[in-house]
């Protein structure tokens, strides 16, 4: 029997502010434990939280980028629960009157566009970090993360497969990085994702049985936590789908519970905590005042939004005339897309670009795209560095591409040049000069070498004259060897044919 999954995600994203949401402590990652705390974020008596304006504006920016409606008036609420990571015994969050609601994100699934609705995006503070393994029978607490601004993004249960969940997260991450409100680094915990999943017989199945009832019912929801990468989210949901389907087919009941993803064993494990219903007893936070966000403010922030990934991808394939696939890869991160555009721009302005050459034309745009997608991305991956740290700047790459375009540099030599450029950040023309790598296109110089090779290989020349085409390739190879790969192969070919 066929089943379908119904998945909703709850994503927490750390906002990239310098200071915390309600106090002036730094949000810098990796500081000494408990070195970035103060009476406000420690929840000491008598303190008053004051909202960080940038945190609010980032949250509005994110909500707008996700096509949410911004509430005219919004308030904070206390979410009450006891856990050692929460020194106040409540988390300042939002409940009624959240910052924004009713947005959506378009994802592409099976080549089709699909809308995933966003229920709400609201602001809240992060909790401290607990370490359970350091000291026996104890838990250690670092409150540095306490009070770091977060947005919580909740989706409607519109996601129908683990694959879609991963797709959604990838797009969400790229949007949030594009607008510059978060690093969305899952390893450092600046993007965290929990999922709700249930299964039910798929629509076709219920249709077959002529029973509309079963398919409409949502199955029992299970919450999954502790997924530390996009891949883990997909795997955990796949596992959970299998587990629930198996239970249903064996006639077992699915328990509403929270399960943890075990990365090593690749299974989900019940948290086994007594299922006391969560009763957070939310009430309006009396220490913080109303946020009134008027139209003018919202519009000002809306205008500050950069071009979002989808739009940029469309523009890349339209304006640069590169394939959709290339445009998709190049716009997958804002930095990479900026790099590509700076390259094209630099090539256009380059003094070596003469008017007759196809520089800045369709073919050239594709050449640059190819080079970035193969050579550059490979070097970045091997060096495990981000494009923003890359020493080979777009201007340098653009110069190199124009040198290839003009026939001064062969593609093969360019690969070597690029490796050095990547390491040192030097310009291609400088590397070429230093290593005397210039392609030899000078016919007079090449004729001498060709003559020499012909003299040294009389038998091969014989073979060629008898009609053995392959012999020519051997001779070209000898010339290349003699010039250490610097000879222009087209000219060598031409000269050899003339001589023969």
């Amino acid at each position, binding site marked *: 029997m066929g089943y379908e999954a119904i998945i909703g995600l709850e994503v927490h994203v750390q906002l990239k*502010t*310098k*200071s915390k949401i309600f106090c*002036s*402590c*730094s949000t810098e990652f990796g500081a*000494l*434990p*408990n*070195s*970035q*705390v*103060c*009476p406000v974020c*420690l929840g000491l008596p008598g303190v008053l939280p*004051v*909202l*960080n*304006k*940038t*945190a*609010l504006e980032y949250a509005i920016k994110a909500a707008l980028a996700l096509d949410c409606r911004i509430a005219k008036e919004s*308030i904070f609420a206390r979410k*009450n629960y*006891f*856990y*050692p990571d929460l020194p106040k015994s409540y988390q300042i969050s939002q409940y009624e*009157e959240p910052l924004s609601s009713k947005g959506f994100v378009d994802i592409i699934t099976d080549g089709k566009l699909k809308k995933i609705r966003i229920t709400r995006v609201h602001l809240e503070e992060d909790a401290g970090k*607990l*370490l*359970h393994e*350091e*000291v026996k*029978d*104890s*838990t*250690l*607490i*670092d*409150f540095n993360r306490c009070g770091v601004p977060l947005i919580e993004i909740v989706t409607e249960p519109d996601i129908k497969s683990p694959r879609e969940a991963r797709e959604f997260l990838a797009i969400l991450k790229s949007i949030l990085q594009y607008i510059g409100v978060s690093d969305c680094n899952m390893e450092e915990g600046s993007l965290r994702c929990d999922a709700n999943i249930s299964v039910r017989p798929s629509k076709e199945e219920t249709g077959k049985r002529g029973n509309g009832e079963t398919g409409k019912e949502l199955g029992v929801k299970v919450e999954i936590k502790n997924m530390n990468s996009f891949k883990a989210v997909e795997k955990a949901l796949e596992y959970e789908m299998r587990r629930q389907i198996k239970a249903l087919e064996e006639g077992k009941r699915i328990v509403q519970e929270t399960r943890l993803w075990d990365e090593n064993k690749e299974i989900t494990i019940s948290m086994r905590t007594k299922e*006391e219903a969560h*009763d957070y*007893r939310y009430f*309006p936070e*009396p220490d*913080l*005042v*109303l*946020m*009134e966000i008027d139209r003018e403010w919202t519009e000002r922030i809306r205008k500050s939004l950069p071009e979002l990934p989808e739009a940029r991808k469309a523009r890349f394939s339209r304006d640069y005339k590169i394939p959709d696939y290339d445009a998709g890869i190049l716009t997958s991160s804002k930095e990479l897309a900026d790099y590509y555009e700076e390259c094209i721009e630099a090539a256009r302005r380059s003094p070596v670009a003469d008017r007759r050459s196809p520089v800045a034309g369709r073919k050239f745009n594709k050449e640059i795209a190819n080079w970035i997608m193969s050579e550059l991305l490979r070097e970045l991956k091997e060096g495990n560095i981000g494009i923003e740290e890359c020493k080979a700047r777009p201007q340098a790459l653009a110069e190199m591409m124009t040198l290839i375009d003009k026939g001064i540099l062969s593609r093969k030599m360019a690969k070597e040049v690029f490796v050095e450029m990547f390491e040192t950040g030097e310009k291609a023309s400088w590397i070429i000069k230093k290593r005397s790598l210039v392609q030899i296109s000078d016919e007079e110089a090449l004729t001498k070498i060709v003559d020499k090779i012909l003299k040294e290989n009389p038998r091969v020349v014989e073979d060629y004259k008898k009609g053995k085409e392959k012999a020519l390739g051997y001779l070209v190879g000898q010339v290349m060897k003699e010039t250490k790969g610097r000879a222009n192969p087209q000219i060598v070919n031409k000269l050899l044919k003339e001589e023969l």
Partner: protein
Amino acid sequence: MSKITKKDVEYVAKLARLKLSEKEKEKFTKQLDQILKYVDKLNELDTKKVKPTSHVLPLKNVFREDKIKKSLEVEKTLENAPEKARGFFKVPKVIE
């Protein structure tokens, strides 16, 4: 009719991590019930057209700029901690 039962008191006490004796439970059941009955008087007013109050002061949009100020010294932060270890607060283990 009493609104609050002993069960309610036990539930609220549990959420608040309070350990109450049987005698206290009975006492608080009665007291909470009285308090709620007193507050119930408010229900006699028609508040259909009144917006719920979220804050008693007529203030809105109070913000601070995103600037870092010095945090507390670690020693100072941990001064009142009942237990500490290696710069961390230390508490009884919360998971198995």
